[in-house]
């Protein structure tokens, strides 16, 4: 498996385990704990763009945005500060080269049966990342938050080599926005999600 630079230590640990099979139980347990920690910290690809807001400051327009009421406390010296979600990029992996209806579905038994066995929803072995939602709070649109988030996403995908391409569905007016960010217009999509009429786009 190809490993990017940030995974170098991971690759070394794995080699070590392979070479010392007799000690594998102990070694594997130690490394699993480390991996668990790393994955929790940096493994996810669904990203949120947050900002720290002083909720006691009535003059801050960010203290009253739609997502402010469910924001979590920032662990800092200022108890009034909360981490408010401004934008998110929500994805799964798919074996299709563009986003299809089955990619948008959620397996009925996902909570009990694990995630990679289903034919719909997230496909662990897929090499395409299907973007389900790139959302920016309406009051903050047009300031570059969406493209900042998508660029961060690109970068992270490169680090973990999670996929070969990113695919998404766009409406007519957003096609140009995604083209500027490096996506190609792949023509009308077969997806009927949300009433259809989507354009397939892929990086």
């Amino acid at each position, binding site marked *: *498996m190809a490993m990017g630079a940030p*995974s170098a230590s*991971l690759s070394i640990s*794995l080699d070590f*385990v*392979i070479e010392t099979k007799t000690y594998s139980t102990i070694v*594997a*347990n130690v*490394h*699993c704990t480390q*991996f668990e920690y*790393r*994955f929790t910290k940096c*493994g*996810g*690809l*669904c990203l*949120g*763009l*947050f*900002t*720290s807001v002083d909720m006691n400051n009535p003059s801050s327009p*960010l203290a009253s945005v*739609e*997502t402010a*009421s*469910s924001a979590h406390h920032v662990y800092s010296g200022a108890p009034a500060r909360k*981490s*408010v*979600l*401004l*934008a*998110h990029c*929500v994805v*799964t*992996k798919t074996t299709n080269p563009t986003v299809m209806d089955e990619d*948008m579905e*959620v*397996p009925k038994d*996902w909570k009990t049966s694990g*995630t990679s066995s289903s034919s719909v*929803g*997230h496909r662990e072995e897929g090499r395409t990342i299907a973007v*389900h*939602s790139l*959302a*920016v*709070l*309406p009051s*903050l649109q047009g*300031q*570059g*938050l969406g493209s*900042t*988030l998508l660029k*961060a996403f690109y970068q992270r995908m490169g680090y*973990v080599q*999670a996929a070969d391409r990113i695919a998404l569905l766009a409406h007519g007016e957003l096609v140009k926005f995604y083209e500027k960010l490096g996506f190609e217009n792949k023509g009308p999509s077969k997806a009927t999600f*949300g*009433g259809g009429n989507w354009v397939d786009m892929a990086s």
Partner: protein
Amino acid sequence: MPRDLAAMMRGDQDEPKDKISRDMEKQDHLAEIKPYVQTLTTSDIDSAVKLEDATFPPEERATREKVSYYPSCCMMLSLAAPTRDLVAYST
């Protein structure tokens, strides 16, 4: 905000400006907001649902179930493969 003022602001934005000054304005805004990127976790579900509701018309929104499913299943994207190998060796 009075409608004419809102229109003026929109008109302002429509004026042709060179790309550098437009980009600089955007950077100023971003610097003011000081955004940071974090992996979404299950603790962000409430906010993510609200963000979906505020951004998309009903037929295009991700439901609460979807918003719960996506971060859960993507938590171990890509790096899950070496984990499985290690688990295999440990048994």
